[in-house]
């Protein structure tokens, strides 16, 4: 699945877009297109920190009332989704938010997010300040067998 999603992201981004705030560079950002009626959505991205340690402390977007940093903790097989107050970005390291782990959770999404659309997200960093990024909405479903013959 990771391969499929990566392929889709690559297609969606075309010439890979990135955004930078000080020493931080954000790449591979995407939002999972939502099923009809969905009130939540998940966004994923990669943050490379070329400078001193920083922290992602939150964010906002116009398409959802709230944006939170979430992760999954595996407690004896129970996937507990928990909100993080902040996400550490150690000096010189790259942090990946990816399906099945760390993600940005959009709560109270006002309308379904359709593939091909793009969403403006503001990320708030403790040191680097606010970074505004355009995040493509990607349909990460299995491709239809009629359009994508099996390999």
């Amino acid at each position, binding site marked *: *699945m990771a391969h*499929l999603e990566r392929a889709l992201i690559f297609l969606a981004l075309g010439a890979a877009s990135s955004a930078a705030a000080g020493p931080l560079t954000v790449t591979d950002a995407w939002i*999972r297109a*939502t*099923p*009809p*009626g*969905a*009130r*939540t*959505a*998940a966004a994923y991205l990669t943050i490379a920190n070329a400078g001193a340690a920083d922290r992602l402390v939150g964010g906002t977007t116009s398409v959802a009332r*709230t944006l939170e940093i*979430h992760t*999954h903790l595996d*407690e*004896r*097989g*129970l*996937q*507990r*989704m*928990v*909100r993080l107050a902040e996400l550490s970005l150690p000096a010189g390291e790259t942090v990946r938010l990816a*399906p*099945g782990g760390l*993600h940005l*959770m*959009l*709560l*109270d999404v006002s309308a379904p997010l359709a593939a091909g659309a793009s969403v403006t997200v503001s990320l708030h960093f403790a040191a680097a300040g606010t970074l505004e990024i355009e995040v493509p909405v990607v349909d*990460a*479903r*299995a491709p239809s*067998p009629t359009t994508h013959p*099996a390999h």
Partner: protein
Amino acid sequence: MTARRLVLVAAALTATVLGVATWVYLDASPNRALDIDGYVLTQPRALPAVELVDEHAERFLSADFAGHWSFLYFGYTYCPDVCPLTLVTLATLKEQLAAEQPAARIEYYLVSVDPRRDTPERLREYVAYFDSTFRGLSGSPSTLAALAQATETLFDVPEDQEADNYLVSHSSNVVLLDPAGAVHAIFTPPHDPARLAADFTKVAARYAAAR
């Protein structure tokens, strides 16, 4: 300790005891266990007789699982990350198995552990988004607890539901019911559709050979 907590703890204890018992049994058994991403129950376990509600708001009984293989995933539609990820995996699995074993009768179900928000209508549009043949089931909290216990599934719906944004915790296993409607195997995450297809083929072949 609340009743819900007790159910969770009881389910966890049962799962642990069964897991250890299975491990001890398999380790001592001359019949090698099938090597799958998860485990095959040494003895298929019948589901309790419960009444669920399907995505058309129709009654769905445990007995309705009989006559075909069933893949069950327990989750909820407000879940933005692991549930879509798993349903996409199941949709890919379905396509692969349909191509490899067109004669096999297999159904795919999302069992919502969050009946308060997941109405049949909500479930219908949600599962159909992933595959038009996917089914959606839910039921009362006590029904879901009984089903969860039999399928070694854990879930925890917060009681404090003043807002509509509460988070539900749940195990991310995929449960396989055999054509007798009994719990036959449990697949553990992370799930890969090709691996699930290969594992299912092994399990189904042994099931057919034993009959």
